[in-house]
């Protein structure tokens, strides 16, 4: 999810609030295909393709006109897109949540080192996440497409002067971003339920990750997501216990969980106050 957003946000210089919608679209595509075929793997593939196609359409119809606009227009237009897509999906699929089943191979838990037991499926998600991160890194640094993307990031006019079809390039980048978001949505959809609005909490989290890491930096997004993950866990698990040392258990639990859920935003605010353009951002 973050990876896809970084790609769009950083490389294309576009604030895309509607990214969460692709996440949702992916999840719904997956649920639909899983319902029709019964295959989880086809569903995952479908989510990727479905979200990417939606991405292409939306890029061509709307997003394309926003690159040269200011941040305000981008924020608003994509905010409007959220309304549009959320309601559109609600229209088609109804307001009830759908469910995706995890295939048998990935069901259950496996023991890890030190007798920590971890669910197979979550491990699978982490694995895919790592694969995507590596894949993106290779794509950006090693392939022709990557070189063009990076060139476009630095100087949009120059590379179009060199004969690269910049608008096609951006459509592709946007589609990759949307597709990855869709895939993420499908994978998470199997743990939670697939419903309208499922992308929004994640979206904000993804923005936090990117802003902490520094806009446009893939390395930043990677480190940002680790930081956010760790902080969040600390906030949820350790803080209530820590506070129990100082106060009554009941108070500590409620206090701890309220502060815990704020912790990543506090982290983001702190980082931005110290480094106004993120950890790895350029000024």
């Amino acid at each position, binding site marked *: 999810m973050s990876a896809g957003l970084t790609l769009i946000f950083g490389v294309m210089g576009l*604030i895309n609030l509607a990214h969460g919608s692709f996440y949702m679209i992916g999840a719904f595509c997956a649920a639909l295909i899983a319902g029709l075929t019964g295959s989880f793997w086809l569903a995952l593939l479908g989510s990727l393709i479905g979200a990417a196609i939606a991405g292409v359409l939306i890029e061509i119809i*709307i997003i394309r*006109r926003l690159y040269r*606009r200011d*941040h*305000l*227009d981008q*924020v*608003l*237009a994509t*905010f*409007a*897109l*959220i*309304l*549009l*897509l*959320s*309601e*559109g999906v*609600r*229209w088609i699929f109804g307001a009830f949540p759908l469910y995706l089943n995890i295939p048998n191979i990935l069901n259950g838990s496996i023991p890890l080192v030190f007798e920590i037991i971890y669910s197979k499926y979550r491990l699978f998600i982490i694995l895919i996440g790592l694969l995507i991160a590596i894949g993106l890194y290779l794509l950006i640094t090693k392939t022709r497409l990557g070189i063009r993307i990076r060139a476009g990031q630095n100087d949009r006019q120059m590379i179009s002067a060199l004969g690269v079809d910049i608008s096609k390039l951006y459509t592709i980048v946007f589609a990759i971003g949307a597709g990855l978001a869709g895939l993420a949505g499908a994978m998470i959809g199997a743990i939670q339920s697939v419903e309208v609005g499922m992308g*929004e909490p994640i979206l*904000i989290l993804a*923005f*936090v990750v990117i*802003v902490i890491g520094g*806009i446009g930096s893939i390395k930043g997004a990677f480190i940002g997501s680790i930081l956010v993950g760790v902080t969040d866990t600390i906030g949820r698990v350790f803080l209530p216990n820590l506070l129990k040392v100082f106060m009554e258990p009941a108070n500590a639990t*409620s206090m701890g*969980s*309220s*502060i*815990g*859920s*704020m912790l990543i*935003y*506090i982290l*983001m*605010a702190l980082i*931005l*106050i110290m480094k*106004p*353009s*993120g950890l790895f951002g350029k000024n």
Partner: protein
Amino acid sequence: MISEQFFNKWIWFLLLITPICGLIFDEPYYITLATKVIILGIAGIGLNLALGYCGLISFGHAAFFGIGGYVTAIMSYHAINNEILFSWPFDIFGSSDMLIIWPLAILISAFLSLIIGLLSLRTSGVYFIMITLAFAQMLYFFSISWPNYGGEDGLSIYMRNSLPMLNTMNPLTFYLICLSWLSTSIYVSYKLINSPFGMAFQAIKQNEERVKSVGIETFKVKLLIFVISGAITGLAGSLYTDLNRFVSPSVLDWQTSGEIMVFVILGGIARLYGPLIGAAFFIILEQTLGAYTENWQFWLGLILILEILYARTGIMGLFDKKKKYEK
């Protein structure tokens, strides 16, 4: 072509005629709706000062709207239950008197915007948008998981807060109270915009570098307008709680920030009455389309996108194209 001044007179006419119609047709619901428009309009007017005139794209104005709302609810919750609000450094009781609650809501949201402004205004561009969002989200999650005041379920107050000698439960009375706050906030904005200070913050939107080079402390200017902006939105939040006699974390949600922004943009950015028109349009759309289809927000999204892509001056811009400070 209708001039903006002429248009504004019509707005006042409508504002006065609406409750009368409501009375004549015995439909108090319409008065309540109109009150909602006014309150949301005030919130938008607050944001418009920062966003429209000074170019500070705050995606976190829900924080101020919400804190104003929560201050109001908490004060009256304690007043109703006769509990002590704080016992340190001296006993402070809740209150259900609007004359106490308003200044408090304004002060606390001003203080909050001072803190948020001090921290956020060090950044700019996308980072500013995101850091204001982060602060609002912080409060949102705090309100959800803080159980004392209802947590996720929100907090109901059974009686609308009171004003001496007035029955605030009467829809018309409450409408007029809100209307007077609306005119006050429009008057304050008008005065600000046409003052030397107003010149400074409007110049910052256009060319901050230049404003610095003529020796104006842009940080202070931005901070002050951000605080004023937050205070006005906070007041709106307070009124909103009294309107619904209920407050919940959803007023602190990022979608609330987005909606306040939508009022400003739909109505016409950097126009005195723009946010009011935007809020009115929003509510009318919700009521009319909402009656036909559950998915009215789909059409709202569509209208918004069309506006941003093609008619960037907002509803008021359709009538009055010549505007000095328009985008």
